[in-house]
């Protein structure tokens, strides 16, 4: 079963497994350092439920749920 960032409990670390969204966006995310194997964590959810804030490579990034759902994650160190 594939788990995505939206399924990740708040505050729990995970590793990015793959990014399967539209090319423009996946390229942007990759260039911002979100790559397979990168450690990531969901820090908070916006008051209205969307978007969500991620912590990755020591900076904070917010993305919409629809986009986060396309970022698959796996437990840390599991390859």
């Amino acid at each position, binding site marked *: 079963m594939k788990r995505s960032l939206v399924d990740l409990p708040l505050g729990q670390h995970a590793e990015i497994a793959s990014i399967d969204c*539209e*090319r*423009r*966006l*996946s*390229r*942007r*995310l*990759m*260039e*911002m*350092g979100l*790559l*397979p194997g990168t450690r990531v964590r969901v820090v*908070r959810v*916006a*008051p*209205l*439920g*969307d*978007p969500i*804030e991620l*912590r990755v*490579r*020591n*900076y*904070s*990034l*917010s*993305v*919409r749920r629809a*986009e986060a759902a396309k970022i698959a994650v796996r437990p840390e160190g599991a390859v």
Partner: protein
Amino acid sequence: MSDEASPQVLIAGNPNCGKSTLFNALSGGSAHVGNYPGVTVDRTTATLQLGSEQIELVDVPGMYSLTASSPEEQLAVDALTESNTRAVICVVDATTLERGLYLPLQLIESGVPVVIALNMMDAAARIGLRVDTERLSELFASPVIPVVATKRRGLDALLAALEAQLEPRSGIATPEVTYPAELQADLATLAPVIARWRPQMPASQHRVFALWCLLSLGEDSLRGVPDEVRKAVGNIRRAAAERGRNLDLEIVSSRYVWLDRAVAETCSPQGPKPSWSERIDRVLTHPIAGISIFAVVMFGIFEALFAGAEPLIGAIETFTGFMQTQSAAILPPGVLQDLIVDGVIAGVGNVIVFAPQILMLFLFIGFLEDSGYLARVAFVIDRVMKGVGLHGKAFVPLLSGFACAVPAVMATRTIERRRDRLVTMLALPLMSCSARLPIYILVVGTVFAGQSLGWFSAGAVALFSMYTLSVLVTLAAAAVLRRTVLPGPAPTFVLEMPPYRWPSAGILWINAWRRLRVFLVDAGTIILAMTILLWALLSFPKSTEVSGHYATERAQVLQSASSETTKAEALQALDAREAGEQLAHSLGGRFGHAIEPVLRPIGFDWQIGVGIIGAFAAREVFISTLGVVFGIGEADEENKPLRQALRDARHADGSPVMTPLSGVSLMIFFLLACQCMSTIAVVKKESGSWKWPVFLFSYMTVLAYLASLAVYQGGQLLGYG
């Protein structure tokens, strides 16, 4: 550009890393400084004396990489490949090194001399980060200089390193990123094609440029890429996809593998985000506290623009009026006097009247950006904006639209993508701005005086409906524009949330002032020209018959035996009536007559038509133009004689012009029509072409007409009016 050849140095870096602050510190000039990723849209430059050389320093818009798929993103690559670009100062926020070094790596790979300015070293020290800059600069084959742009620390070393980089060099050392063998083969295939496209490019750079093409091309809207290159890239990408390779991933992850190793070797492991910043975030994005604070801040901005700017605007208007009476007293009566008083001075007044709101809005936005709160505003409200296909960053401009569309349109520059910015810019003039209020008040006072609907006064219900309608129409228009005129992928929301910082007052002030100056010069010229044009339309040609007739009447009054005060009153009334008749005779007046057949179906007559033409200068002018048309003279929205004149106005068949139904029709027309040349001027300025303001004017006018038509005709069918 005047001197094509003057050597230039670019200041590039991620959004929000301190480029503009460094630019200002180096040039002593005043570039835009903000804390909201992606603000710098203009090309800001300054001259810098470096040793014996004069170079031009360019503040390039923030970017995360050189990869481009839109003309906007292409800006940076274009600047980089310009032949007079001698070097790049790449600013890197030391607190986000792991990601921030991606851009300089890409820059250095491209072969341009780079100096890395490791900025925000103060903040980095606070979180306990140590960087071995010497080793880092060895790895990157480029000088790495620690700086604190806000405190001007490290600037001398930076300039020295820059000077050294400007020296002509033989071989260029670049970091050796290891790309997979298959990718290397692809690059070898592409290199000769690139060589044909860019013959003047050194052969060593063909492979790097091939990398850029592989990553950028495909589903892009870049200009000037030859078909041959597109075809070659397409073939390579297709072949790769067939074998299950992801080229983007191969390229980007090869670079990050190299970067991660470099960072691990030179930087101490970083601590977490500062706890106080985290604590502020916990409050500001809390479901209850966060939304309450959001509402209070937004209301504060709204109140300041709406009510706070009022005294200043009033003072400017009073001053303009004072200048007009003074000039009228000094200059001999005649066309020149009219031109100066009603054309030039009124036009200048029409421009500077926007100054208070523009200054205030940009001080606010500057504060929100620099503090980091604007990103949180977008974070909190994005959910709502997403529904109509807008970006979270569109909220502040839309809200400001309630006060005035002019600063609001200027505020859209915080939105990163051009398409998203245009949608916002084209929808927000539908927000009911404060200049529409006097018209509602006049109409309500004319047709709904003393009436009530249940517990409420009819006027209050009408006003409330106008504001509600304006919000609904604005959002609907955004949704429709997004699907029709400006189609394309819905805005994605990938927004960095910068740490909180305390903004510097001086920088806020410089920024707001800079925005205002650009408005006064660029949009101001258009507004002034249009005011003079409108004045001419409503003044010429003059009828000698009318002036002759009134000259006789005046003579009669003067010869009569009545008291001085009665005489003066009679003369004033004559002046007002003459002005009305002359206006009817003017081109504008005739135009009003000519379009009456079009206006009748929506319940207006030619006099209102002339008012609508005059209102183009500024919506408030509708009322004073009506005052002139009805021969009343000076009038405002509380003016009793004007209300009475409107009530007494009759169509040719004797039916009253102003009924509650035609009143509602008139209010809806003003709500939806783009009766404001200043909005047109500022949209021209911000969109960069006349195409969009013309479109804006057309669609709003058609919308307004159709809505008024539906209301008026529908209302009559239902037996109202």
